[in-house]
């Protein structure tokens, strides 16, 4: 009964490649997020979608493109991967404007070589 799931859990790829990370939540939540956790464990928000609509877009290179086919899914596509993209990417979801608690997925560890 995983609430927020991500695939893959680990991703190792070479510079210049294009890759995608998928996120799904079965909580019926309206809002989903992508966070990046760097090698020093610092967590920073990247994007947020509410009912498939982009509501937060932090200063992220445009090589990163989120896509939300429906409100239960938020995928992250990364073009032309760079070494600095190596990090753990966490997906999260929140019920809606009346709820502030975010539920996090298990994370995807991306390693770019």
């Amino acid at each position: 009964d995983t609430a927020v799931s991500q695939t893959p859990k680990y991703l190792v790829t070479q510079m210049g490649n294009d890759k995608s990370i998928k996120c799904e939540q079965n909580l019926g939540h309206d809002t989903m997020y992508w966070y990046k956790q760097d090698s020093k464990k610092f967590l920073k928000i990247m994007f947020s979608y509410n009912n498939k609509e982009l509501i937060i877009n932090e200063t992220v290179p445009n090589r990163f493109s989120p896509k939300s086919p429906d409100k239960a899914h938020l995928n992250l596509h990364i073009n032309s991967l760079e070494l600095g993209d190596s990090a753990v990417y966490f997906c999260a979801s929140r019920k809606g404007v009346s709820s502030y608690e975010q539920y996090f997925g298990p994370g995807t560890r991306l390693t770019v070589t």
Partner: protein
Amino acid sequence: AQSVSQHNHHVILSEAASLELGCNYSYGGTVNLFWYVQYPGQHLQLLLKYFSGDPLVKGIKGFEAEFIKSKFSFNLRKPSVQWSDTAEYFCAALHGGYNKLIFGAGTRLAVHP
């Protein structure tokens, strides 16, 4: 801009010692504050949260935090730590206008038996 700072980056304790992790936020308006824990190799889990009301908040696993508005602080406490509390602890504030969590840099806690 809203920010969250955690004073201690690395804390080492013996079992049964008392714990206090500092957290300060910079935001003068309504604040929603959280403490998350990340056990080694795992995703973030919510320990406790403060929205309003009693400034002393009790969370899971014997943790509590006190919101002191005059000090812009939300310190995490536990009277007696266990080896299983070894983890990374993150303080976060909700930036209400943008519905995004602003995280502190995290505190790595190591508890020795």
